[in-house]
């Protein structure tokens, strides 16, 4: 390839990285944490489900029938049951839905949701509202916050999803240009010289993470772009072209859980049998939710969503409602012919490493951290080369200011994520009656902004990094003793409390904290970008 073309691609690679690098770090870092968001962090953040649960299908069936007597008869368009401790639910949720059959004239949706304690089956809460309001006052915990922040930066649809989707595309563009411009790819696959200066450390680190992780980063970029852009661009565009803009019709055609044609003949719906079958379907699969369509009708159908199991993607189990008989198991896009349906089904698990158990999640988290470090090391490399160039494009102080912005933004998001853990413990285990969402959102964004301001104001960037790392380490180390003190849950009573997941989370955070403290002690960058700008 001509050297002029390579030079142009190098310029594109540099500027795409410099412009999107900070945001890409933020999304990739929170993504690496979000891999363990559900169920591990969800269980850690929810005291009521820290001890492993065994749900009783008969009791759930009784509850569905009992509360069906208390809701208006038009609220049987669908009945949803959310299993606690698997996805976002921490209580057993039973939801009776009315889908407002006059949507074209603004007919309302209505939902009545009952929250039950998953052990005693006592009613905890009742909500009556439309769908939008039901989720508008959702009480976020650390798991929900980080998972949703990764998905749309809490900017909602369409802005947040567009941003994260476009970041997936820029990641792919950076990978393609990076591979083309890196001409010594085979000769430098195992080159890492950490003791020969900061510049070589960053240079080799960037190349090693880029070369070895190229397929993984590409996978994350592609699936991330799809998951971000599907709902806001791809589905509306496809509906506009082929369905006269009717998105519901398109979704119904593509997804494999059709609405049954009701017989208008009364027949009691069997719920316990299908639930029992789903709970025991496969040793590695877990039921996340169940949906009953046509409750009380002879043609009622029960769909149960499963994750895990022998195949990579989630499955839906279909049961005949009146008899409770198992009909079939299929993927969400089972209706789509050929490999396309499978590709659509594996998008989500491939992105989040949500298949094959905890070890796969560990691999995905470590590689996700390398995806986060890739733009950061790229920016550091750009700063090093810019400052040390014979004809720098900008003044040294401009490079140093930009470096401080990078430190504040990227280091700040790490500090803010670490701060959420002790905050969550204070919310769960103190009787201070603190406002949940305000504290979670406030502590995250305020600490992040403070870190940016601190980094921009501080003279010594190297010292700022050292102290940000130490603060993060201190926050993570504090989680385990704080949890033991406030909740009484610790390693020594593990077999009594059976809090296996939450104690494991405590110890992993403790280990990461110790590692960060050790790294902070060794942090001595010999780089102009990190030099103190204080005038003596």
């Amino acid at each position, binding site marked *: 390839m001509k050297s002029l073309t390579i030079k142009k691609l190098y310029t594109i690679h540099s500027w795409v990285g410099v412009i999107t690098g900070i945001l890409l770090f933020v999304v990739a870092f929170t993504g690496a944490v979000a891999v363990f968001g559900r169920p591990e962090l969800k269980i850690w953040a929810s005291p009521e489900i820290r001890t492993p649960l065994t749900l009783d299908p008969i009791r759930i069936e009784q509850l569905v029938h009992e509360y069906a007597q208390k809701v208006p008869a038009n609220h049987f368009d669908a009945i949803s049951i959310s299993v606690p401790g698997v996805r976002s639910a921490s209580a057993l949720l039973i939801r009776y839905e009315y889908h407002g059959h006059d949507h074209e004239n603004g007919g309302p949706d209505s939902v009545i949701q009952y929250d039950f304690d998953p052990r005693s089956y006592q009613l905890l809460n009742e909500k009556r509202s439309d769908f939008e309001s039901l989720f508008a006052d959702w009480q976020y915990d650390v798991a929900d916050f980080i998972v949703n922040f990764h998905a749309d930066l809490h900017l909602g649809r369409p802005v947040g999803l567009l941003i994260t989707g476009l970041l997936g595309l820029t990641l792919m563009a950076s990978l393609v240009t990076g591979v083309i411009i890196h001409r010594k790819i085979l000769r430098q696959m195992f*080159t*890492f010289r950490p003791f020969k200066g900061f510049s070589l450390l960053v240079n080799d680190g960037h190349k*090693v993470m880029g070369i070895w992780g190229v*397929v*993984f980063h590409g996978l994350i970029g592609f699936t991330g772009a799809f998951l971000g852009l599907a709902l806001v661009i791809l589905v509306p565009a496809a509906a506009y072209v082929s369905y006269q803009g009717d998105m519901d019709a398109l979704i119904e055609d593509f997804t494999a859980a059709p609405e049954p044609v009701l017989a208008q003949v009364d027949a009691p719906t069997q719920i316990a049998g299908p639930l029992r079958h789903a709970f025991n379907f496969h040793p590695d699969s877990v039921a996340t939710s169940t949906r009953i369509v046509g409750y009380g009708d002879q043609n009622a159908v029960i769909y149960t969503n499963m994750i895990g199991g022998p195949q990579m993607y989630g499955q839906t189990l279909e049961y005949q409602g009146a008899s409770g008989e198992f009909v079939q198991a299929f993927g969400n896009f089972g209706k789509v012919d050929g490999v396309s349906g499978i590709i659509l089904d594996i998008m989500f698990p491939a992105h989040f490493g949500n*298949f094959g*158990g905890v*070890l796969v999640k560990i*691999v995905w988290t470590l590689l996700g951290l390398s995806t986060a470090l890739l733009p950061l090391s790229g920016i550091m490399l750009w700063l090093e080369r810019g400052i040390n160039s014979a004809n720098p494009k900008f003044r040294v102080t401009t490079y140093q200011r930009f470096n401080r912005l990078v430190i504040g933004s990227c280091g700040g998001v790490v500090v803010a994520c670490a701060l959420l853990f002790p905050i969550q413990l204070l919310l769960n285990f103190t009787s201070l009656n603190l406002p949940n969402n305000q504290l979670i959102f406030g502590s995250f964004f305020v600490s992040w902004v403070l870190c940016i301001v601190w980094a921009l104001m501080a003279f010594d960037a190297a010292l700022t990094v050292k102290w940000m790392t130490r603060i993060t380490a201190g926050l993570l180390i504090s989680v385990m003793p704080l949890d033991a003190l406030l909740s009484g849950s610790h390693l020594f009573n593990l077999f009594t409390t059976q809090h296996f997941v939450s104690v494991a989370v405590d110890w992993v955070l403790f280990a990461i904290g110790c590692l960060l403290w050790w790294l902070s002690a060794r942090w001595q960058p010999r780089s102009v970008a990190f030099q103190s700008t204080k005038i003596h």
Partner: protein
Amino acid sequence: MIGLMLLVSLLLLFIAFCLLREEGGIARGLKPWLFAAPFLIAALALQICVSGTITGSFLFIGSVSMMGMIAAFIPSER
């Protein structure tokens, strides 16, 4: 089961990449590749046999990325 298989295959891949490491780059001669090939094939076969073609392929992508990176992060002499 997948966890145990993954641990074994990660170890096999690490050995393979250590065999393929040559002066900061990847080996160009035939001999290191002949030694490493059984480990690479065994790791892929193990992952596909235990978890199926699709899951195994994705596991292999992740495993190669991670173990390659770890092998490459061993400081080189050059």
